[in-house]
């Protein structure tokens, strides 16, 4: 589904990603862990086409298509979704109008007619249940005045509405209490199918107790330096990153 080869990217002339190789197949859950500043968020931003980042080398293919040539909205239509680490507040744009525009543009891309107002509201009601999102939030402006937990639930709600093929969860667990974490993680699990994949970026094993990864990667200084099964996350939780740095021959 996703095939990243030798990806280099920089922001303001500073190289952050220094040759990423990563393949994600349909139905897989990958966890990306790593110390602060290693390039995890840069990787997710580059994949969804954030204009601040410049790809200097490498290729990314998504379902066989050249992802890097696509506009951000087109990447979304093709089935790529990012749950933002810091969801943006958009005062004055209601959740309903925002989601209707998003859903209908995707349908247009797929050659489907726009949903009627009734169909759309029904879909909203149905998907809201997945993350127990309060109906009142749906009538408010996008993320405006939402608590940290509500914002993250809202991200997963949007994911439910758009049914992406590949979801990237960028530190979706940050700022969540235990209950909210469970609700959000269960939401993600409910949306999982054998055809969809997920990249979970996190600092903590906690989230991975709920969303079980098939493969765990360690990203360090812009490269994937270790890849293993789910037991790697447990080991990192216990031992930190120093032993990996040592393995790389760095002084610790």
């Amino acid at each position, binding site marked *: 589904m996703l095939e990243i080869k030798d990806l280099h990217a920089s922001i303001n002339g500073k190289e952050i990603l220094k040759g990423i190789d990563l393949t994600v197949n349909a139905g897989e859950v990958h966890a990306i862990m790593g110390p602060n500043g290693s390039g995890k968020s840069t990787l997710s931003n580059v994949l*969804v*086409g*954030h*204009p601040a980042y410049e790809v200097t080398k490498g290729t990314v293919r998504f379902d066989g298509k050249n992802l890097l040539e696509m*506009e*951000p*909205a087109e*990447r*979304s*239509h093709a089935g790529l*979704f*990012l749950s*933002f680490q810091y*969801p*943006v*507040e*958009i*005062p*004055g*744009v209601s959740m309903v*109008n*925002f*989601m209707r*525009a*998003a*859903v209908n*543009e*995707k349908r247009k*891309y797929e050659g489907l007619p726009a949903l009627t107002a009734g169909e759309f509201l029904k879909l909203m009601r149905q998907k809201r249940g997945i993350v127990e999102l309060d109906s009142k939030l749906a009538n408010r*402006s996008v993320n405006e005045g939402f608590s940290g937990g509500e914002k993250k639930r809202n991200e997963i709600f*949007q994911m439910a509405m*758009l049914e992406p093929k590949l979801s990237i969860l960028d530190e979706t667990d940050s700022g969540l209490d235990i209950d909210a974490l469970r609700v959000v993680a269960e939401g993600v699990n409910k949306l999982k199918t054998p055809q969809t994949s997920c990249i979970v970026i996190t600092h903590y094993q906690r989230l991975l107790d709920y969303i079980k990864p098939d493969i765990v990667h360690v990203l360090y200084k812009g490269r994937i330096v270790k890849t293993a099964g789910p037991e790697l996350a447990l080991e990192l939780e216990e031992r930190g990153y120093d032993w990996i740095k040592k393995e790389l021959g760095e002084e610790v």
Partner: protein
Amino acid sequence: MKSEQQYIDLFSQCEAMICRHSAEAMNAPRAKAFADFERIGFPTRKQEKYKYTEVADLFAPDYGLNLNRLPIPVNPYEVFKCDVPNMSTSLYFVVNDAFDKHDHPAAQLPEGVLFGSLKEMSEQHPELVKKYYGKLADTAKDGVAAFNTLFAQDGVLMYVPRNKVVEKPIQLVNILRADVDFMVNRRVLVILEEGAQAKLLVCDHAMDNVNFLSTQVVEVFAGENAVFDLYELEETHDSTVRFSNLYVRQEAGSNVLLNGMTLHNGTTRNTTEVTLAGRGAEINLCGMAIADRNEQVDNHTFIDHQVPDCTSNELFKYVLDHQATGAFAGKVLVREGAQRTCSQQTNRNICATREARMYTQPQLEIYADDVKCSHGATVGQLDENALFYMQQRGISLQEARLLLMFAFVNEVVDQIRMEALKDRLHLLVEKRFRGELNKCQGCAICKN
């Protein structure tokens, strides 16, 4: 004084004709207005108040005037299919400055309420008009007000007697109609006595593709505890110049809402001056402008807190695209002794291009010590993070920009206290941003 001279000559030559086709109450202040205009002329940019609009240049071209009051053949019902769905209004038309004589089947006003031609009303109720006409628009202080007082021959009178509540909103459609470049000087007088309540919606349209210049002076008297809403909507075209001077005086406990919306225009200068003269009076003054190409919108507001316990809330928002220019200068004066004044002024603007220009000048002058006042102004671009967030959800950049722009100005539209009109405005704003509103929305002519 080049630009002024042609009008000084015109008035000198045509004074008798102007007066003959007007009413005594409107003729009485002309002599003083003439002296004032000769003395002060048009405002210049050296005056703080008119810093952003070059008035004399705008009056310099040769415009036709209809001083002899030749009837202009037009049946507004045929050309203007006003459609604000779900809103029932008492509908009236003014063609240029002449109150339309056609029947108004929808217009049924409560007993005692007057709405009609200012000239005719001045003849029928001379004492009423004399008591109020020209009392707020000081011709010695403002050259545009002096000019209008000099040449205005007709317009509209609205009178709501004591404790009378006009439930149904009154809608006034101003239609600019001419075959040659044309000037219109219109006068509006609104009197709400103690406890009276009414809502007035005024839309300006330009029907013909000639150059128009219109001046209007609106004087509003809100008596004790009166409640008045005035919505002004400009939907004209690129070759229209509009000068509007709106003066409001509020007595104790009165509540006035003014909302001026510029959807399409050429060059617009709106001056709004509100005097809070009685305790507990409240003014909600808002406005918005959507301008593109070479359109210009200049709003100047002045709120005078003369007595204690009054409230003023002011909100103006502009979205400027292409090479459009916007200006907002808002002054709030809290006089000595005007304790417990609450005043809030906000002006927020978006310049969508590098060429668009916005000038903003918030001003607060306070001479009382127990007050709650704030003001703020911003000029910025659309939020890049919000744009990217929306694109990630599959919304195209163009659509995301539109959504942000609607959201931005809808804060002003949401101040409207008439649900059907609010819905209609949301739609008009959307169409305006989508470029589907080339001229005015209501004219059958434009739709063809």
